[in-house]
């Protein structure tokens, strides 16, 4: 692996609160130096980053890679490629595959597949309960040893208060968070979209905001009871943001994420029964979207996660009620963050990058999210001003179920380095 000199970019490192034009020198897969006018060693490749932003690679705590079991929708390799193309150097794979990632062996499988793919780093999240069936705890210790960084029953909530309590207590031993998909299933049952005026008009069964908020409240109360770390996935409602704010004021170990689609879209997008607007939690109302944005601004919502959920095209090509939830998000997350949060002045560019790299890396205690000397060279280079149109044929994911197809986004990834190796280089237009 030759040395790399990334020259003349605007280097933003939220981990050290630095922002300025500099060079970044990468040697042996690590950040060797950051500073002005670094000379290139003989044999080093030089990348001209003038006019571009150079930042720690993005970190996504919440993706679905579908392997094993649903490889027609995505594999660990295609998901890791999609991540690199979106500027992500580390992603955390939810365990709702077939079989479920609920043992040392299945965690090990994800790790091995990711190493073979050699694109973005993939960190497995183990299931909380065996088979995600909400009954018996999985072997957290064994899974952590094999590489799991958190536990979650995502796809569904941690089923009972008792299971959540024991999971939070038991997870403390291993220093990992319990990530929860907050949904009261009895309230949400049969729901296809947010409960409100649009669901009333379309005649679709609604999922009330209360279904999420009840579980957020439960998890916060149990975090207080146990002292454990609960990480709240894909927050979507105004009420959830208020509850988290309250929890943080009390000093509880509660962290939260929000998705680009929840800070961008509202339930109006379901008009016309577009199944690419069907997700869980559902797209909510304008006031909810605004609360999510404010939460990201004031830090109540700690980080942005894509909830990348690939589905084969023909499973989305059906009646709204029967279509699966979720959209692909790895390749549109940065562009939406720039267009929706930075350009309107809600977040500064360093703040956005903090919420997409440094902060999520800290929440799951992952390496990365920093350009500190000696850190692994996980780096993204992008042009924040470049506008581009999301086209189906340009996406690297195996699935293209996105409501943003045809939209113009800001900020296009030029280069993604993972451990000093080029995982994505748009100028070469080839998969390296």
């Amino acid at each position, binding site marked *: 692996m030759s040395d790399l000199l990334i020259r003349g970019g605007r280097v933003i490192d939220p981990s050290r609160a630095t922002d300025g034009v500099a060079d970044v020198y990468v040697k042996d897969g690590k950040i060797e130096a950051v500073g002005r006018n670094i000379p290139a060693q003989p044999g080093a490749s030089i990348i001209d980053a003038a006019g571009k932003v150079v930042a720690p690679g993005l970190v996504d705590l919440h993706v679905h890679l579908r392997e094993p079991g649903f490889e027609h929708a995505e594999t660990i390799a295609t998901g890791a490629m999609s991540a690199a193309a979106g500027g992500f150097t580390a992603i955390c794979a939810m365990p709702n595959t077939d079989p479920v990632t609920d043992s040392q062996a299945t965690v090990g499988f994800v790790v091995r597949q990711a190493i073979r793919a050699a694109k973005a780093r993939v960190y497995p999240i183990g299931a909380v309960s065996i088979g995600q069936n909400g009954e018996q705890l999985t072997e957290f210790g064994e899974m952590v040893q094999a590489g799991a960084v958190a536990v979650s029953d995502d796809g569904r909530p941690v089923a009972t208060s008792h299971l959540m309590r024991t999971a939070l207590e038991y997870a403390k031993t291993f220093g990992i968070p319990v990530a929860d998909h907050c949904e009261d299933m009895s309230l949400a049952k049969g729901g296809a979209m947010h409960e409100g*005026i649009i669901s009333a008009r379309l005649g679709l069964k609604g999922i009330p905001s209360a279904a999420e908020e009840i579980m957020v409240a439960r998890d916060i109360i149990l975090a207080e009871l146990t002292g454990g770390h609960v990480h709240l996935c894909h927050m979507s409602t105004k009420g959830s943001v208020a509850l988290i704010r309250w929890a943080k004021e009390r000093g509880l170990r509660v962290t939260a994420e929000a998705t680009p689609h929840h800070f961008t879209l509202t339930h109006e997008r379901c008009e016309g029964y577009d199944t690419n607007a069907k997700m869980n939690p559902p797209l909510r109302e304008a006031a909810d979207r605004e609360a999510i944005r404010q939460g990201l601004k004031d830090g109540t919502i700690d980080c942005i996660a894509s909830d990348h959920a690939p589905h084969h095209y023909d499973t989305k090509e059906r009646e709204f009620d029967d279509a699966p939830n979720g959209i692909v998000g790895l390749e549109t997350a940065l562009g939406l963050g720039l267009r929706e949060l930075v350009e309107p002045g809600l977040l500064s560019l360093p703040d956005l990058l903090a919420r997409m790299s440094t902060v999520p890396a800290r929440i799951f205690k992952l390496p990365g999210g920093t350009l500190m000397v000696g850190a692994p060279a996980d780096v993204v280079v992008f042009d924040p001003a470049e506008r581009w149109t999301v086209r189906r044929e340009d996406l690297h994911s195996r699935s293209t179920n996105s409501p943003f197809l045809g939209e113009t986004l800001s900020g296009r990834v030029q280069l993604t380095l993972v451990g000093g190796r080029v995982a994505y280089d748009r100028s070469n237009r080839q998969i390296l």
Partner: protein
Amino acid sequence: MTEPTLGKDLLGLEGLTKAQVELILDTAEPFKEVSERAIKKVPALRGKTIVNLFFEASTRTRISFEFAEKRLSADTVNVAASGSSVSKGETLVDTARNLEAMRIDMVVIRHGSSGAAKFLADRIRSNVINAGDGTHEHPTQGLLDLLTLRDRFGKIEGLKVAICGDVLHSRVARSNIWGLLKLGAEVAVCGPATLIPPQVVELGVQIIPRIEDAIAWADALNILRLQLERMQAGFIPSLREYNRVFGVTRERLARAPKELAILHPGPMNRGVEIDSDVADGPHSVILPQVTNGVAVRMAVLYLLAGGGPDWRSGGGGDDR
């Protein structure tokens, strides 16, 4: 001013203009007369092929459509979910492609999922008529209710209509609300709060919680069918209590300040949402509704036929 037309499909009343709704009602008038003839058949749709695609069991609506089609001389085929490839797990998109390949002129679809009619209409060039999609809309039922009210009161504008019962799960309620509001009626909904979506007020509809108050307010009651499943799903405690609290009974009607018209889309649960002596009473227009159903459906078929697909030129609707 150009005459309004209907376009390719009839998916719901929400998307229609007032002029389009009135066009259908006015066109239905001469078709009432056709059904009174000894030979109840005109050749208007001779040579047109129509598929009645019913994914949900329905006797009344299917027969009404079938009569309407036959009285217009169309060739019709009925496809029911049981006994077809649909029950073998064929997806709606495959069904659509097969219909497309058979060069069908029109499809009348009844389906359990909201949006299914639009899904089909977006994918085939044939005219699509929604005969009820999930809990979304049932536009021809809404139209026949409008025609019945217009027959009874002379006009819709200014009329006070209360829609009573399970509004939450009712496609009839939604189509009625849109149609009535477009033609200038005042609309209220009445029923247990568990079965009334609170957001309906945003549509311009008022909520009257008690049936006695709805009867005192309204010129006409459109009484929805209460599905037995609602009790099992915990929306109401029992049919008995529903009748006690929300049933339209002769005693309650007797206290009305004026004579109300009583509508019901059928099939009725006598003794639950409506008592027999109300259903069979002098103010019931339930059977005229059925008669008007055929005329309205003839009008819709006739109006859409002109905008039908031209297979020779490959024109017609959206090509996907």
